[in-house]
């Protein structure tokens, strides 16, 4: 029986080529040998992580990341129910695009977190600071992921963090998006707790924050 990691390179290549036929072939091959959880943890997640890191280095395009994540989510839904991969006793995690209507980054992260077994509450795009505070208070959110494209929106995170501290909430903020790529110090300036260069890094940070929760 071969090791599942032997399939990663082929799988990654098929994802980058958006080759659904080849992706399905590989999934069918591994399904016969490995459990769904292992397919997710040892094939799908590492392949998506590699692709995410390649984007950070300028080797692949954002459209390829989006389609790779979309296809993996489609196959995941057929492979296993979310109930079976959902992480046990998960902390409350939410995602939002603050005062900004550019939602692609949020969509990509949501898909990748979903394939890794995280349940995410989606507060949508264009949400104001006031509405976000209301939501995170009501839902007891412990980790808040914020994606932005515009600098003005990124700067608003400072006000959000101040309000969170004022009210005494313990919500950790992970930020991501173009403003933070072009200014690597910006996440500190706005008082965010963490910065994820790409979706894969955001997942690693979540795991780090909650101490690697098991399913």
């Amino acid at each position: 029986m071969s090791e599942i990691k032997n399939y990663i390179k082929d799988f990654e290549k098929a994802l980058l080529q958006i080759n659904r036929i080849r992706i399905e072939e590989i999934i069918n091959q591994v399904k016969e040998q490995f459990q769904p959880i292992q397919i997710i943890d040892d094939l799908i997640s590492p392949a998506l992580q590699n692709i995410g890191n390649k984007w950070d280095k300028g080797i692949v395009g954002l459209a390829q990341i989006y389609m790779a994540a979309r296809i993996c989510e489609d196959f995941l839904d057929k492979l296993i129910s979310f109930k079976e991969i959902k992480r046990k006793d998960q902390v409350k995690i939410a995602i939002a695009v603050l005062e900004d209507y550019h939602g692609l980054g949020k969509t990509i992260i949501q898909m990748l977190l979903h394939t890794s077994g995280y349940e995410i509450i989606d507060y949508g795009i264009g949400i104001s600071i006031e509405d976000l505070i209301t939501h995170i208070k009501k839902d007891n959110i412990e980790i808040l992921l914020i994606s932005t494209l515009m600098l003005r929106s990124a700067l608003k995170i400072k006000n959000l963090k101040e309000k969170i501290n004022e009210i005494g909430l313990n919500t950790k903020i992970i930020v991501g998006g173009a403003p933070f790529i072009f200014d690597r110090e910006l996440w500190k300036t706005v008082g965010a707790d963490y910065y994820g260069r790409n979706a894969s890094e955001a997942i690693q940070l979540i795991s780090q924050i909650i101490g690697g929760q098991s399913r």
Partner: protein
Amino acid sequence: MSSNTSLQRVFTTLSHKETDKVPLFLIVTMHGAKELGMSIKEYFSKASNVVKGQLLMHEKYRTDCVNTMFYLAVEVEAYGGEIIYYTDGPPNLLKPIIRKKEDIKRLTSPDVKESKPLEKVINAIGGLKDELQDSAPIIALVVSPFSIPVMQMGFDKYIELIYEDKELFTTLMEINQEFCINYSNAQLEAGATMICYVDPVSSPTIISRELYLETGFKIAKETISKINGPVGIHLASGRALPIIDDVAQTGTLVLGTSSLEDLSELKNACRNKITLLGNLNGNTMPNWTLEQTETIVKDAIAKAGPGGGFILADHHETPFQVPENVLLAISNAVEKWGNYPLEWVE
């Protein structure tokens, strides 16, 4: 002391020769509102405001162009989109005008002459032409047929369209291409010197080179061939190096580049093919000290200035948060270090 007009300076640069000074383009738009003491919404409500604002900034910052970009979403506003205004950032589109891909079959491009949003832009061009005559280039903007669907239908849905529905993608490109050509030529007729063809989706930051060659490249080449004046492509802070040789074949004279890539490498790739525009990082600009500003500008000129074919600019629209003193410091640094023949460069 500089002896050329801005127009002469820019056109000599475009022919890959050294002129009197490295040209400076600052992609200032909303700063015009600050100049006139208005809100951004009020500023962009009238062509005459933009004319006044651009002229004031052109004089104050000694830039070598004026631009007539109100906001990128103005074209989708012409398609029927609704705009949201902010007090501290560029106006944006509130929601997509194409809700499901089947809507593409019913989409028609707006008549440039009948469109109120576009009328403002055309009038601003005319106003600037009356004032400037041939002293400085008037740069008008269009969003490429290949990139505007990000606003028309949302980025995620558009990516899916590109990969999964070639027929509807082609239909959308035809509609958008017709509009882009008409709008570009209308702006040139109104007095614009050059068209800036904004095409971020073509950047390797967004799509692979292979996909670019099948899509954005072909569309750019075909569209640019039907625009009746000089064109420069801008990737709106997206990477460019992997596709520079391809971009050079589209008919563009200029390429707007990103701070993510090294300016020396960009210059080597562009040399004698296309004029390099860039690549000051507007995102960090709000925090630059005056000393840092001079160092950054001097460094950029040293890397890309020799031999001509280089216009110093920011890599995207100047953020509203950039203070006036930094913009003045950029201008001062160009005056100090940008005079050809750049003898101080080793």
